[in-house]
């Protein structure tokens, strides 16, 4: 456990962006204004699968006030080619085709055309005047259906890949991957208890409160300026440049404040379309999605079918584990089934493992990342089976997990051995937690636990720090601030500089103002951009020592600096005093940090939950919930706790209520927050947290990303609690009242 004490790291300063956000002054995507601004509207498909026979935009263009209309025909034309935009090689036709449909619409809500007009109302009226002639086609909505022989083909030209290698198998399976370790048959033969179960999870949305919004100006000088709500300004730049076939240097993307993303705002939807409209009319164009657009036209997380088989000996050791995962990719390949497969048994040290996973296209929106993408579905299946085996072996569920817990040196099924990890420490903390040891009294109540894992990633980040004459610094970094990362990054710089967090003025730069920085996602920001800030601060300190040495006539190597005080013999200057003397010692000081780090260090999280199940209605009430997570080193504990609480609440919503309720012809029937039920503060108790700190040896302060692992265990923990409360094993998400009652009635029968 981390016992290192720091001056700034580990404290809880007020967040730098707090005042603007609580007073409503922060500017989000839709708040952007410009002279001559036009408003846009996107026309979306009413069909889940149909051929586009004809698009006639003439009536829309003739409407007074309309300045431009675009369709897929406005993209640069030419032969299809493979592009790598950060998610592996994909045909550019898929990328452009998801922005504006070409040839076929692949899901209801698929964008078909867009209009720019002098008002939002005129734009909406004009969109309604666009005539699209469709030939409806049969649709397919789930992975098991799409994998059947003779299923409607989402892409007629799609061939299954195996580890990236094309095969000659046509169908809806975009990718099949297999991970194998040991001897799976021998492992099951050695087991005293074997449990095999099937699970299904529904499509759910990230549910960020701010809809997508983007404004683009194709300027007279040929530069394209974009202001948008995104998790990655450089990804917007690169994708937009690619689909418009222009150099990245002609684009400048300014990220506005962002009202949530959770992985769903990495993908680009509006920016190239707004740019095309602007190119046609020469004025800035703003596109803002409605909530219905967000649900139907952006990427939720995949629904899935999972089969898990686990065997264990009577002494509580797991001997073998096998999984089959088929995830719905939506309209285009890329369902996050691979990380799901890599995470499914990641909490355990198992010698014999076999995992097959399938990425399956269906007629739903193209799925995208959602907080530990793929891992929550997988953990729901695996952790429910683990719980059932513990029960059969009459072992405490945490004790059973501890006997099999992954630790340093454990090899995961996908290959590498773990370096230092905190799985055991998370489980020990759960076992000793007052919640786990408190009596749970009353009828129809039960307690459940589960654990989950997320890899975390590194990726490139950049940071600049300039020193002000008053001893403060301005810090510019490239990571959109979703969860308070501006402050956690500033705190790491402050720690190195020996100044207060409040003396760092952090801001998020546009793509012209800061070096390349990958998206805010993968729990990488406090880790990687924090590391860039650490490097930039080290650069500042090196230069500050040179200035002090110049003043005192000594070798810079003779200067020490601790907690903001530079010393050499009897000479001493505070950071503030030295900052006031930069002009006379050589001019401004600017430090820079640019990293592409290894060593992200995965994070484990656990959930303990008490529920009460109403046996008459099936309603599940969360009585108490505790989230435990390894943060490596919590830079700002309040933000770590906030991440744990947020991930837990999203996991609870996924477990109990959330789903894309689909008609048989592929229409989402609950595309508003009134009908798509997410938990609110009124539904839940305070989410308790316990931060575990097993420092990550791959980071200067020991940081592990904390944004994702916390969403992984809640659905399984709740399913296990429901079993103890109502006696039914739930194997389908969401576990809403009808599903609970069905399970209770099935058991009575």
């Amino acid at each position, binding site marked *: 456990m981390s016992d290192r004490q720091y001056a700034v790291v580990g404290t809880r300063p007020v967040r730098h962006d707090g005042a603007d956000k609580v007073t409503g002054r922060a500017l989000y995507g839709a708040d952007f204004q410009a002279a001559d601004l036009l408003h846009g509207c996107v026309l979306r498909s009413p069909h889940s699968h149909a051929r586009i026979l004809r698009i006639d935009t003439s009536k829309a263009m003739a409407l007074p006030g309309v300045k431009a209309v675009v369709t897929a025909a406005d993209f640069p034309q030419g032969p299809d080619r493979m592009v*790598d935009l*950060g*998610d*592996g*090689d994909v045909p550019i036709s898929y990328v452009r085709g998801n922005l504006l449909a070409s040839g076929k619409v692949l899901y209801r809500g698929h964008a078909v055309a867009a209009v720019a007009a002098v008002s939002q109302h005129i734009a909406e009226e004009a969109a309604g005047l666009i005539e699209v002639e469709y030939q409806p086609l049969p649709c397919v909505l789930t992975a098991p259906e799409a994998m059947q022989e003779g299923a409607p083909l989402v892409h007629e030209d799609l061939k299954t*890949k*195996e*580890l*990236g*290698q094309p095969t000659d198998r046509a169908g809806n399976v975009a990718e099949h*991957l*297999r*991970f*194998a*370790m040991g001897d799976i048959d021998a492992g099951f033969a050695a087991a005293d208890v074997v449990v095999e179960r099937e699970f299904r999870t529904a499509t759910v949305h990230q549910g960020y409160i701010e809809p997508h919004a983007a404004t683009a100006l194709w300027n007279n000088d040929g530069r394209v300026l974009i202001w948008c709500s995104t*998790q990655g300004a450089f990804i917007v730049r690169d994708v937009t440049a690619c689909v418009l076939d222009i150099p990245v240097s002609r684009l400048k993307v300014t990220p506005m404040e962002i009202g949530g993303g959770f*992985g769903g705002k*990495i993908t680009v939807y509006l920016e190239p379309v707004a740019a095309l409209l602007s190119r046609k009319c020469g004025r800035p164009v703003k596109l803002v999605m409605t909530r219905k657009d967000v649900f139907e036209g952006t990427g939720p997380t995949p629904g899935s079918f999972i089969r898990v088989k686990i065997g264990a000996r009577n002494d509580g050791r797991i001997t073998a584990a096998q999984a089959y995962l088929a995830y719905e990719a939506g309209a285009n390949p890329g369902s*996050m089934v*691979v*990380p799901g497969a*890599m995470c499914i048994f990641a909490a355990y040290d198992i010698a014999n493992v076999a995992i097959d996973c399938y990425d399956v296209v269906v007629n739903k929106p193209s799925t*995208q*990342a*959602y907080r*530990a*993408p*793929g891992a929550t579905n997988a953990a729901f299946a695996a952790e429910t089976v683990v719980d059932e085996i513990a029960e059969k072996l009459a072992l405490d569920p945490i004790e059973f997990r501890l006997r099999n817990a992954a630790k340093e040196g454990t090899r995961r099924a*996908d*290959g*590498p*051995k*773990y*370096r230092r990890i905190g799985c055991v420490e998370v489980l020990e903390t759960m076992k000793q937690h007052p919640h786990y040891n408190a009596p749970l009294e009353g009828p129809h109540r039960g307690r459940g636990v589960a654990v989950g894992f997320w*890899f975390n*990633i*590194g*990726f*490139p980040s950049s940071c600049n720090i300039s020193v002000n004459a008053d001893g403060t610094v301005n810090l510019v970094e490239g990571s959109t601030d979703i969860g308070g990362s501006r402050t956690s990054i500033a705190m790491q710089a402050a720690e190195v500089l020996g100044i207060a967090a409040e003396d760092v003025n952090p801001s998020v730069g546009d793509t012209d103002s800061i070096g390349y920085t990958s*998206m805010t*996602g*993968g729990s990488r920001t406090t880790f990687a951009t924090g590391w860039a800030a650490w490097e930039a601060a080290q650069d500042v300190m090196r230069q500050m020592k040179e200035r002090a040495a110049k003043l005192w006539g000594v070798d810079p190597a003779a200067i020490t600096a601790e907690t903001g005080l530079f010393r050499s013999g009897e000479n001493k200057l505070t950071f503030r005093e030295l900052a006031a003397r930069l002009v006379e010692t050589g001019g401004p000081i600017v430090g820079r940090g640019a990293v*592409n*780090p*290894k*060593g*992200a260090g995965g994070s484990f999280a656990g959930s303990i939950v008490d529920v009460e199940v109403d046996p008459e209605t099936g309603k599940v009430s969360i009585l108490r919930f505790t989230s435990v997570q390894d943060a490596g080193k919590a830079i700002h504990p309040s933000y770590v706790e906030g991440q744990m609480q947020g991930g837990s609440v999203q996991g609870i919503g996924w477990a109990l209520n959330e789903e894309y309720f689909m008609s048989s012809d592929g229409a989402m029937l609950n595309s508003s927050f009134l009908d798509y039920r997410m938990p609110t503060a009124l539904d839940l108790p305070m989410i308790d947290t316990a931060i575990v700190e097993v420092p990550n040896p*791959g980071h200067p302060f020991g940081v592990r990303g904390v944004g994702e692992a916390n969403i992984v265990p809640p659905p399984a923990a709740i399913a296990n609690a429901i079993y103890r409360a109502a006696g039914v094993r739930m194997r389908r998400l969401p576990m809403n009242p009808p599903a609970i009652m069905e399970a209770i009635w099935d058991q009575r029968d």
Partner: protein
Amino acid sequence: MAEVHIPAMLRELTGGRAMVEAAGSTVREVVEDLERQWPGIRERLVDGTRLRANLSVAVDGEVSPLGLAEAVEPLSEVHFVAAIKGGAPT
């Protein structure tokens, strides 16, 4: 010699072996030595001058951002693993 772990779906190229040995001071050199021993494997791992887009390489347990240029020690463990990108893997 580095210990190279072969993904399950490429073991047909190594006679079913999950682990083989290969020499090289970088991942690129290791791949060349693998190709010498197991012809055809390079094409499945490398696309031109880079790793295939769906692959990453982990050396001694750490996924490398350098890919083929990553240094390999004589006793290193090398894994070719599915790439985790975007929000994932993000």
